């Protein structure tokens, strides 16, 4: 294995050495690019030698390093929404400098961007990447007036959901658990509040999001379908500011400011919903103590220790609480913490060391205290389940010269899965049930080389070595082979001690992305990436629930492996006003989990006996046209796709459509600024209905009518097509001293379409002799929203 790795890397090293030897007198200019107003580091800023294609972009911490021949250069720093800046530099030695860019006074004007070389898709190597910054998200129409990260990305090509209120999204035909959602590098397991209606990320604390759907850089691993990389704001290091919003579902408040001007800052942002508070006066009797809320707190601090060292610490805590009276309580949520250290070794070698902790847990709690009758026992029952990870990830970037850079690093994540512990009390008797804990260690090492020999051609290729060990302490279960589709019987068990390896898996994951520019405005791109995944969410409901448990790869559950190929084309109109991109992809996925019919996924120690491995494939075409400047901005995205799977033991062993397959998916996002203070935005979405299994028969049994599908084929019908229009209108108030306020009025589902979430078959509740097909629409009318946002 080791020799293979060295063999593969050898040509890279050779090549670099060659280039290095040729280099004449060259010096490096490095530093950070920040926003002048608030000191936030700026990600993805183009730094280039004016008039040439030589250049780089700032990394996720705003750092850049560019090596140029000795002499005079004009450096240009540009990014959409910022006034581009030109700087004369006379390079006689290595230089460090921090650059501050000013927000363009009016984003309406096209003048500010004319002639500047934007960091646009046509010029970058990355494929299958969508980037949204918070300013763009804020312009989109919202659900109940709230800016939402996950709803925003659903307007991008290649991103789907199974329906309104589904927790989770699907990227290029992958299941919802195949998305790696990172909040400042810590994985987030449940990304939504209120069972899918709002995402857990507080927009006031988010700086930018990157959605990577393919062509994954070697740095990322652990999930097969996508990486949603969410970066939190550092906090304003110039002035203390307060942001807030009052809406009809929840309110937000954030405070950010310098701890020491220019050197350290903090941000703390919180949200709390208050439906239950509003409902309270209307609830009586048993329902009096009903709870229905969520809250989250996001915080971050950063310290610039000196010019070469910066320290960041960030954390998130969120919880959803449901309680029906005092009897039943359910709550769940994520906790994450990240500490990062940025170190500049030399002005060409940058280190980001990340350590993180992530915990997702849920609790179900029940007691009969409110309804206990005389002589009855006190009853209590509590069930808890969690998944905890600890990770460390040093990542190096070596900026060799203007044409070459190397990204390398290692990572390790230790997982503990606690599927469930139940405690029951009846009178004076207590009993505890414990499902076996599971442990896993995921370790990886990667290297990739970004090579841009000319302005026309560039390639980034690398290799990731992923290793996974299913570890003790715990019990390993071994099952007999049976006909697929039937529950496997237990052959035996074996106890393992702490950290003993029960099963190990190793994978080599090649990654490559290449770009060739046909001209200044046209580029073609291609990529290939293999990705692996060692953990799986078990869910056989229409959409995953907060109580669906995660399970690691074990001796019975093989890791998922995906291979994805993409070819794309980007056209950037000469005026820089329009950008059109198209991409086709093909993805092959192995060992996605499926379930036997009537699988028992809840509180089942022998859950693996009900799991089936499947093959999946998905392919599609994604087209996006985007206009980022002018009074009217927005995009149209269209996806034509298919995703299907084959599982022995299901659907007569034939290929069937995945639950999240949508043939057509069209999104139209338009924003028009009538004046600097008045903005109208609209969003229209059209998507083919998702596949569903319909009953073609009923069985009369014990006074019931049991729905039955005599074809035994899964997902053999489709729900009706989904479409929806949303509008929002923003009125910014006049600035009063420092106070800035704005009203956001929104209408969701403007023409009140009853989009089907599921269709199910049942006996009429009032007249059981009537048998019906019922359409469930999660949102069946227009939902208005008003939010007042303020900043001072």
């Amino acid at each position, binding site marked *: 294995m080791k020799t293979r790795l060295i063999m593969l890397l050898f040509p890279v090293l050779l090549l670099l050495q060659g280039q290095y030897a040729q280099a004449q007198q060259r010096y490096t200019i490095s530093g950070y690019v920040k926003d002048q107003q608030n000191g936030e580091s700026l990600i993805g800023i183009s730094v280039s030698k004016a008039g040439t294609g030589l250049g780089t972009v700032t990394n996720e911490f705003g750092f850049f390093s560019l090596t140029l021949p000795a002499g005079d250069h004009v450096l240009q720093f540009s990014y959409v929404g910022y006034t581009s800046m030109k700087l004369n530099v006379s390079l006689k030695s290595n230089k460090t400098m921090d650059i501050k860019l000013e927000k363009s006074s009016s984003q309406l004007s096209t003048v500010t961007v004319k002639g500047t070389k934007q960091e646009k898709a046509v010029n970058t190597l990355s494929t299958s990447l969508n980037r949204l910054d918070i300013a763009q998200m804020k312009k989109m129409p919202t659900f109940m007036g709230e800016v939402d990260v996950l709803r925003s990305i659903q307007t991008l090509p290649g991103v789907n959901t199974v329906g309104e*209120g589904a927790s989770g999204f699907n990227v290029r035909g992958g299941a919802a658990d195949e998305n790696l959602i990172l909040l400042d590098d810590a994985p987030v397991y449940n990304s939504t509040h209120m069972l899918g209606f709002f995402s857990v990320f507080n927009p006031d604390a988010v700086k930018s999001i990157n959605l990577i759907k393919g062509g994954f850089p070697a740095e990322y691993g652990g999930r097969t379908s996508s990486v949603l990389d969410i970066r939190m704001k550092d906090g304003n290091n110039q002035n203390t500011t307060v942001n807030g919003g009052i809406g009809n579902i929840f309110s937000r408040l954030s405070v950010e400011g310098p701890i020491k001007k220019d050197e350290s800052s903090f941000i703390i942002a919180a949200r709390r919903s208050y439906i239950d508070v509003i409902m309270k006066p209307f609830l009586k009797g048993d329902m009096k103590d009903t709870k229905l809320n969520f809250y989250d707190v996001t915080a971050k601090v950063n310290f610039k220790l000196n010019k070469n060292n910066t320290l960041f610490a960030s954390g998130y805590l969120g919880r959803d609480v449901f309680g029906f009276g005092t009897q039943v309580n359910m709550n769940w949520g994520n906790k994450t913490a990240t500490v990062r250290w940025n170190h500049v070794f030399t002005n060409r070698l940058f280190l980001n060391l990340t350590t993180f902790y992530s915990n997702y847990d849920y609790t179900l709690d029940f007691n009969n205290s409110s309804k206990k009758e005389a002589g009855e*026992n006190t009853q209590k029952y509590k069930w808890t389940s969690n998944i905890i990870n600890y990770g460390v990830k040093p990542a190096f970037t070596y900026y060799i010269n203007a044409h070459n850079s190397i990204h390398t690093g290692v990572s390790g994540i230790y997982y503990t899965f606690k599927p469930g512990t139940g405690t029951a009390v009846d009178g004076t008797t207590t009993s505890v049930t414990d499902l076996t804990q599971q442990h896993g260690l995921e370790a990886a090492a990667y290297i990739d080389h970004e090579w841009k020999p000319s302005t026309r051609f560039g390639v980034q290729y690398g290799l990731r070595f992923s290793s996974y060990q299913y570890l003790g302490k715990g019990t390993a279960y071994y099952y007999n082979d049976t006909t697929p589709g039937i529950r496997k019987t237990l052959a035996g068990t074996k106890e393992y001690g702490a950290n003993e390896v029960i099963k190990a898996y190793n994978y080599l994951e090649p990654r490559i992305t290449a770009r060739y520019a046909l001209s200044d405005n046209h580029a073609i791109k291609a990529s290939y990436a293999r990705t692996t995944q060692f953990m799986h969410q078990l869910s056989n409901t229409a959409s995953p629930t907060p109580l669906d448990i995660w399970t690691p790869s074990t001796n019975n559950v093989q890791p998922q492996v995906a291979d994805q190929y993409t070819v794309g084309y980007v056209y950037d109109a000469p005026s820089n006003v329009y950008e059109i991109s198209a991409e086709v992809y093909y993805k092959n996925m192995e060992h996605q989990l499926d379930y036997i019919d009537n699988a028992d996924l809840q509180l089942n120690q022998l859950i693996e006996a009900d799991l089936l491995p499947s093959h999946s494939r998905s392919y599609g075409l994604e087209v996006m046209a985007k206009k980022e400047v002018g009074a009217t901005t927005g995009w149209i995205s269209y996806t034509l796709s298919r995703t299907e799977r084959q599982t022995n033991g299901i659907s007569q062993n034939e290929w069937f459509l995945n639950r999240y397959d949508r043939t057509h998916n069209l999104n139209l996002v338009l924003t028009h600024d009538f004046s600097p203070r008045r903005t109208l935005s609209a969003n229209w979405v059209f998507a083919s209905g998702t596949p569903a299994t319909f009953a073609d028969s009923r069985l009369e049994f014990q006074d019931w009518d049991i729905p039955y599908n005599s074809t035994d084929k899964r997902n053999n019908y489709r729900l009706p097509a989904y479409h929806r229009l949303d509008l929002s209108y923003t009125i910014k108030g006049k600035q009063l001293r420092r106070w800035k306020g704005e009203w956001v009025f929104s209408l969701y589902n403007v023409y009140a379409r009853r989009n089907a979430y599921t269709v199910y078959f049942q006996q009429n509740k009032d007249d059981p002799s009537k*048998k019906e097909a019922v359409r469930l629409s999660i949102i069946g009318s227009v939902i208005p929203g008003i939010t007042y946002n303020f900043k001072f």
Partner: protein
Amino acid sequence: MIMAGFSACTDTIDVNVAKGTSYPVLDAWITNEPGLQVIRLTQSVPYTDQAPAPVIKDAIITLIDETAGQTYAFNFNDSAYTFNPGDNATVGVTGHAYRLRVVYKGETFEAIDTIKRTTPIDSITYKYKTKSENAVPKDGYEAKFHAVDVKGAVDYYWIRSYRNNVWHRVADTYSVDGYFDQSVLDGASFILPIQEGITDEEHPYQLGEKIIVKIRSLTYQSHFFLTQVDEQINAGGLFAKVLENVKCNATNITPGGKQKLLGWFGTSAVSSSEKVIE
């Protein structure tokens, strides 16, 4: 639940589903209750066919008490296959294993189940609840049964309630040792949500009505089957399970037999209690 706040709605729609293959459906539940034992055999029909399923009349159905070595021939009359041991006699005996044999169109199917012990219902209580004070959907009586799990083994129960007589089924709940899905405590009293599961919140009991509750004992396999059925017949909601076929425990024992039989053969010991709301 919360979806109500988001104006979730359901409506009946017409779906164009191709007519499926019709299979024979076995509906056999043998109990230790005295008197007539009934087994139905019907044809599966398209889901939205409103007419009752056609009855299969020409099968031969035999119940074998494997423990006692006794055979009961069920004869078809009117709409079902029946056996009457006499008004005060019983067919089912707690602890006995049973085999059901169905001979249909020249092929033979067999299924087995065992009558497990059940637990007595101590009492039924009720409370009047109004819409305005308790946020219940309708004014009426919420009833609760009181029972304790039998100690010493994992027990599976099926609780079915009726209004006025056994022809008006109200609700079904399932329990393992008095709890929901898993045995967490042996010998405990039935937990509140199961106790209250005998009321249909949308149609609570009214003054003068009789509440009838029966606890039927189940084997693990029958309990598993019924909870799967329950998920399929209550498939609404955000987190509903997708449609899956429930599997029958009857196997075709005819060599080279091609036919398929759906449904289930189950056996139960039954405890029963009733109360009139005064």
